[in-house]
């Protein structure tokens, strides 16, 4: 006998992550069921037209494939998931296949009956986007009058059913200082929150959403706010589930130090599935790996060149960033490096500027990222006026 049957020791999440990374198992999958939405948020990176969503049968088949491949953490998101008329059927399928299910929603369509339905199908967590506690600000971002009141009204309905609720607040020009109200709202409701400073180009490369992005200098009051304590992540040691103050509202949710020299979970033990069947390493790294309408998920996960390219990235081997003196202040995202700088291995302006700002706040004198140093040397301009332009969205054949 190889050992008495028992419940293994903690820390379980670290072990699970290490094991699934080593075995390349897709532990966590973010599945956008639709890009259609009942809000029109000014900063949104999605095209809300339906260009041929997966049918119910295709979604069920995808879920069955994911369960077989080893996925445990499943996030249904969109667009607005409640616009899928088959949402309950898909949740029932997810329950039958024993996924741990989280949802991302604006919650406008949550009713007592739908909250009960979510509970009945075992949904564990719901993340709701809230941009401000001030309806004028929130509703101006969503372009739906009354949307804040409806989103907030959903929270007690979900919590009464024992479903965990988390508020996600992307920060942009329109709501930068409104985060304090969201923080107070979250505390008054007794729910966690996440502040997301990431505003990305649209998935088709259109960079219109970047008009709403706050400059790094303007972010200073947020970065200095002692009530936010740190830019790190607080982990509850008893269960390994993280509570983040800052982070990405679209992330896999399994960020963890167990990734060591890997940039993040993308492609290693997590991936993204679009409403059209496309598989990406991450929604923020929309480099096409394949389509489940053409190949099985396993074929894509195990054989796609795009995923292999992402898996080969090691933080310690990044040409410039690995030599950066302020690397420890940087939250470089490989997806944003690709979308904004055109190079999966490269540096990009936003990450470098943020790292410099954070380093400065902790007392580092005149911090300069390795990339900014190289740009200054190349241009002979110590003021770094010659910042690279945002490039056309890269593609891979």
């Amino acid at each position, binding site marked *: 006998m190889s050992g008495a*049957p028992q*419940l293994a020791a903690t820390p379980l999440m670290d072990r*699970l992550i290490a094991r699934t990374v080593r075995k390349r198992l897709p532990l966590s999958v973010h599945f956008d069921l639709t890009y259609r939405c009942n809000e029109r948020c000014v900063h949104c990176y999605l095209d809300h037209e339906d260009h041929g969503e997966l049918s119910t049968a295709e979604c069920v088949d995808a879920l069955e494939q994911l369960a077989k491949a080893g996925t445990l953490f499943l996030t249904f998101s969109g667009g607005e998931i409640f616009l899928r008329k088959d949402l309950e059927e898909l949740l029932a399928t997810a329950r039958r296949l024993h996924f741990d299910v989280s949802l991302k929603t604006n919650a406008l369509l949550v009713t007592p009956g739908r909250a009960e339905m979510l509970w009945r199908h075992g949904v564990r967590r719901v993340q709701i986007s809230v941009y401000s506690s001030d309806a004028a600000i929130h509703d101006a971002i969503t372009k739906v009058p009354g949307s804040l009141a409806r989103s907030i009204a959903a929270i007690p309905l979900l919590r009464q059913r024992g479903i965990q609720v988390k508020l996600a607040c992307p920060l942009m020009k329109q709501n930068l200082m409104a985060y304090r109200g969201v923080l107070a709202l979250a505390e008054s409701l007794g729910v966690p929150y996440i502040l997301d400073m990431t505003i990305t180009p649209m998935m088709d490369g259109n960079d219109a959403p970047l008009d709403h992005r706050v400059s790094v200098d303007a972010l200073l009051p947020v970065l200095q706010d002692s009530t936010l304590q740190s830019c790190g992540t607080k982990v509850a040691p008893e269960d390994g589930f993280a509570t983040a103050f800052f982070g990405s509202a679209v992330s896999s949710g399994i960020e963890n130090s167990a990734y060591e020299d890997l940039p993040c979970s993308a492609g290693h033990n997590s991936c993204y599935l679009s409403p059209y069947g496309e598989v990406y390493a991450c929604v923020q790294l929309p480099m096409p790996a394949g389509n489940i309408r053409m190949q099985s998920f396993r074929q894509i996960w195990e054989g796609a060149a795009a995923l292999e390219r992402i898996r080969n990235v090691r933080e310690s081997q990044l040409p410039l960033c690995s030599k950066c003196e302020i690397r420890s202040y940087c939250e470089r995202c490989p997806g944003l490096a690709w979308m904004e700088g055109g190079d999966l291995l490269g540096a990009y302006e936003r990450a470098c500027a943020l790292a410099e700002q954070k380093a400065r706040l902790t007392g580092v004198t005149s911090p300069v990222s390795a990339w900014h140093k190289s740009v200054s040397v190349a241009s002979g301009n110590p003021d770094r006026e010659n910042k690279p332009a945002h490039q056309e969205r890269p593609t891979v054949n």
Partner: protein
Amino acid sequence: MMVAANGIWQKNPALAWREIENETVIISPAESVMHELNDTGSLLWRSIDGRRSAEDLAALLAEQYEVSARVALADTLELLDELSRRRLLITIESAPVEDAA
């Protein structure tokens, strides 16, 4: 609490779980607590179906591993007890006790 050898269990239907490389990760949604079973625990978990008793499960364990029936039953009862304490299992009934007379 010690479970009965002739008890019948089923998995708590509220749970999420996945067997990954012969180990099983289980999550209780209500508490967001993660549990993990080793390979032998996973064999038992996989076999808990609302019909098998602890004795049936122990017999499966003894079939698959080099272990005596007595030790297999003791290990099985211990695991079922712990899983029940953690509310990962629900006792649905006890198999009828044969009349000793």
